[in-house]
């Protein structure tokens, strides 16, 4: 079988041209040359594949001349006609990671040539491109070169040969959102009992579904003077003005709403509704106070139990909303509440 043809992309540092002072090195094609980490790849490929050309480009040059660098490099790759394209590995170098991800994705999308890259999970290029191109997770510095090549090379060979690629956990690439159904050998109940027995015996076990990490915060000191305190309402129950003017999604909310309740003493069927798709909306649509208790807080405000009900409330839909999104909304909402002198928040959930 003919050797798989590989074109390899690296930056000025790994090409041993120079460091930061050479980051403006324009894209250069070196036909027939294997450079820097390419040698490690070649050793790994043995006689199954060969690097037919290496492209070197300065990290600053690439990022500051994105359109030209991309176009030039795509033309170089097109001319070489490789079976597979490898970029990096970039480890934790941010500009390099972005360059690798960008060019690997472009080669794949615009030339139809399969591509592989590798970098550390926290590299900015990772979040940007891991769903667009196979990206091996590497250590955060070049000491991880051997390990990176040991995973990138076999994956590149598979892609070059057109062989099927396994799950991310098997091949070592970052999960890219692609799901393939398969039948487990043991049924779920048996796997669950096995896992529980290990857990009870204090033995290590591997979860089939990792939970997000929920952090903890120290409790705030109690509100001292409730009668003069400004209380704000926030909800994940999706209460919105009737018509959902800002189109908050019924699931996987992409944003939150901020609404003015100056002069509003009671939420009614005509004025408010719920946007939430994860619970029976009938009761909240009849009377949204059942989720956002504005009516009783207005009474308490009038009676002097609390100093003031903040004139804005914040709302989103908790149903299927990503933890990361919820965290981001909360950080913003929290900042706004603090800036508005709010003393305490009542958060309601369904």
């Amino acid at each position, binding site marked *: 079988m003919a050797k798989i043809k590989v074109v390899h992309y690296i930056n000025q540092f790994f090409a041993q041209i120079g460091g930061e002072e050479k980051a403006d090195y324009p894209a250069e094609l070196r036909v027939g040359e294997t450079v820097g980490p390419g040698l490690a790849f070649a050793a790994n490929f043995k006689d199954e594949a060969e690097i037919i050309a290496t492209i070197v480009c300065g990290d600053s040059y690439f990022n500051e001349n994105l359109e030209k660098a991309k176009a030039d490099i795509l033309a170089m790759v097109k001319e070489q006609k490789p079976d597979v394209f490898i970029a990096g590995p970039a480890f934790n170098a941010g500009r390099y990671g972005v360059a690798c991800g960008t060019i690997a994705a472009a080669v794949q999308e615009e030339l139809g040539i399969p591509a592989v890259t590798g970098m550390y999970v926290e590299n900015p290029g990772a979040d940007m491109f891991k769903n667009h191109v196979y990206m091996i997770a590497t250590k955060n510095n070049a000491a991880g070169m051997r390990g990176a090549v040991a995973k990138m090379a076999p994956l590149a060979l598979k892609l070059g040969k057109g062989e099927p690629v396994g799950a991310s956990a098997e091949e070592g690439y970052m999960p890219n959102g692609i799901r393939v159904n398969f039948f487990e050998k043991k049924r779920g109940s048996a796997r669950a009992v096995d896992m529980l027995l290990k857990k009870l015996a204090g033995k290590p076990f591997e979860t089939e579904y990792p939970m997000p990490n929920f952090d903890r915060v120290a*409790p705030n000191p109690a509100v001292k003077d409730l009668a003069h305190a400004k209380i704000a309402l926030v909800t994940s129950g999706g209460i919105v003005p009737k018509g959902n003017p800002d189109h908050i999604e019924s699931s996987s909310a992409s944003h939150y709403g901020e609404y003015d309740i100056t002069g509003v003493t009671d939420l009614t069927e005509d004025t408010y509704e719920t946007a939430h798709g994860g619970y029976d909306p009938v009761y909240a649509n009849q009377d949204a106070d059942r989720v956002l208790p504005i009516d009783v807080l207005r009474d308490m405000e009038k009676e002097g139990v609390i100093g003031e009900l903040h004139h804005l409330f914040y709302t989103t839909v908790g149903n299927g909303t990503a933890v990361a999104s919820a965290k981001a909304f909360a950080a913003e909402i929290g900042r706004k509440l603090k800036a508005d002198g709010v003393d305490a928040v009542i958060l309601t959930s369904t």
Partner: protein
Amino acid sequence: MHICTVTPISMTVGANRIVPAIAIPHPLGNPALKKDEEKALRRKIVMKALEALTTEVDGQTIFED
């Protein structure tokens, strides 16, 4: 503080002051009651929420009835 029905969820995500609610589709209501009774129930829960806000706690605390 957090008013919610499934308090174990509130505990898992790290709320420090928690008040249990009535039901998922109507945490601060009960459609089986008359309007004024329901509002009184709602007021009771919110009063508990204010009690939670004005009470010093040193860890996660559920303020039950």
